[in-house]
């Protein structure tokens, strides 16, 4: 498909400044700013700090998972079970809450369940060498299925007051716990992916796993850790979401996997692996949060938003390719 015709090979690299301004992230940032301005023109209530703080709940939980998912996708894998991990974590926390476990215990159980689910995925993919798409389609059914077994059509409600802080509490002024967590995790994941050996290995594996193995990279160990990390972040998201909703149903977080993958792809991460950045995903999270919140202000129903999310997912990949075809 890529023809080997004469290609223009530059004799010098573009300056870092030019590269930064022409990057996907810069384009995305422009889009984010445009949507922000459009929203503030569309509704007089948009620019209120408390309103903006409320808007952030639209994307923080999904973005937390998207950071880990971005690393997983860069390494050439995918995890479609994240929403089901949330459901299972939430169910375990709910069951523990009914048994009278204190708040710190609920948090530990949420994180532990997320890690266990991630380890299970990681074991099947990295340990047994099974394809991650099918494995996580299977665990997507299994994890949520366990929730359904535990809860049926019922729900856990009545979480202790102290537990509400994770999803409803504010650290300072309008800055909610979730928003602060989002910023902290964005920084941590940027450092992990862009400034550590481990991060470099993720790119190496995504570009050529075989070459990575021959260069002495412990490919399966890195893959396992990435699934573990995705499970852990899903656990954290489950704590925030459960705390925010104050209840657990087996259908909690349905369709989150679609939005998380969309965020990752919109952020410029190649779905085939090997390239992408955390800042891109951060901006993509802002864009998606602003779009859904703006549509919410215009009273657009949720299912119509999901059409837009689906179209965004395909459009973001299709448009550059159409553009390239048209220029040729």
């Amino acid at each position, binding site marked *: *498909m890529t023809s080997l015709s004469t290609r223009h090979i530059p004799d010098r690299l573009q300056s870092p400044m030019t590269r930064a301004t022409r990057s996907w992230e810069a384009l995305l940032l422009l889009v984010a700013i445009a949507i922000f301005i459009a929203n503030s023109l569309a509704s007089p209530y948009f620019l209120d700090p408390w309103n903006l703080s409320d808007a952030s709940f639209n994307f923080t939980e999904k973005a937390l998972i998207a950071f880990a998912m971005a690393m997983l996708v860069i390494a050439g894998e*995918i995890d479609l079970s994240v929403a089901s991990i949330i459901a299972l974590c939430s169910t375990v926390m709910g069951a523990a809450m009914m048994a009278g476990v204190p708040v710190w215990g609920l948090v530990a159980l949420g994180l532990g369940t997320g890690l266990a689910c991630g380890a299970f995925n990681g074991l*099947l993919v990295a340990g*047994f*060498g*099974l*394809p991650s*798409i*099918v*494995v996580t*389609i*299977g*665990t*997507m*059914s*299994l*994890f*949520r*299925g*366990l929730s*359904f*077994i535990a*809860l*049926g*059509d019922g729900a856990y409600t009545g979480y202790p007051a102290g537990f509400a802080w994770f999803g409803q509490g504010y650290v300072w002024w309008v800055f909610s716990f979730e928003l602060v967590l989002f910023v902290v995790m964005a920084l941590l994941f940027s450092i992990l992916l862009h400034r550590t050996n481990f991060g470099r290995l993720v790119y190496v594996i995504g570009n050529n796993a075989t070459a990575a193995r*021959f260069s002495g990279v412990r490919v399966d160990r890195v893959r396992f850790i990435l699934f573990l990390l995705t499970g852990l972040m899903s656990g954290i998201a489950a704590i925030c979401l459960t705390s925010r909703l104050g209840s657990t149903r*087996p259908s909690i977080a349905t*369709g989150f996997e*679609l939005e998380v*993958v*969309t965020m990752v*792809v919109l952020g410029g991460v190649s*779905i*085939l692996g090997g390239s992408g950045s955390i800042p891109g995903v951060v901006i993509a999270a802002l864009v998606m949060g602003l779009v859904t919140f703006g549509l919410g202000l215009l009273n657009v*129903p949720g*299912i*119509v938003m*999901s*059409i837009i*999310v*689906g*179209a965004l*997912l*395909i459009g973001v*990949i*299709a448009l550059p*390719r*159409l553009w390239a*075809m048209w220029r040729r």
Partner: protein
Amino acid sequence: MLKSRETILALAILALLAVIAARFPAFVLPANLAAVFTDTSPLIILALGQMAVILTKCIDLSVAANLALCGMIAAMMNGAAVPLPVILLAVLALGAALGAVNGMLVWKLGIPSIVVTLGTMTIYRGVIFLLTDGKWINAHQMSEGFKAFPRAQFLGLPVMAWIALAVVAGFALFVSRTPLGRALFAVGGNPHAAVYTGIHVGKTQFWAFTLSGALAGLTGYLWVARYAVAYVDIAGGFELDVVAACVIGGIAIAGGAGSVAGCVMGALFLGIVKNALPVVGISPFWQMAISGSAILIAIAFNARHQGAKGRIILKHAEVRA
């Protein structure tokens, strides 16, 4: 003989039936087995379409949404007093068109099928909402002929089961006797070799998606007519069952390998489990976890047969170096 996946799967199904029959002999009466087969018909039809797609190294997660959209359109056309044959042709054409959209995006733009169908899955379901405003079409809004056709008895089986049997027979001929059917295996088995033999990889994938879509459209009518209700969320999550049926049936997710018999038995296995759960007194809420576990066991089992491959490649490379 025991090495063949189909044999093992057939034995697993017989063992499952034996376990159920030990406690509930009525379950294995011919009339009940026919009812189980009829109930599994939509899954069988969709799994065969999915098989065509998976054979070409792709996956179609939009089948259930496609089914729901076509089913809703069928119900709406029925409301407008369109005759049934026209409705049947229309859902086939619409389903094929929706599948073709997936196929075009995969073929012309080279977007990974998982991304395309994850996107179209939500878009197709969203379109149902746009069409209906979230309203249901209930049994009393459907004509008698529309509802009766899938249930009409013909030689002891409902028409729905006959349609499934016809699709199975047609599909078996298609994959074994037609150039396109053989191309599905070639494209998935080795895309580069397929190109050198003059097979167009993208076009083959396109036709696989179109076929999967057409079958989803047909099933859309059958589903809506049989359950006599159409709304946004019908067959929600059914795509997972369809993929599960294929994986259990031994269709290699990496493409290029699988059989119609395996696929049908994979669907029947899930169908028997689903129908047996209420009989043996297990909550239907177990269904989801069971099909998830079945997927995982099946892929682990599939991989066991290819277990030594990685090591051999490494040794080979060392020898060359």
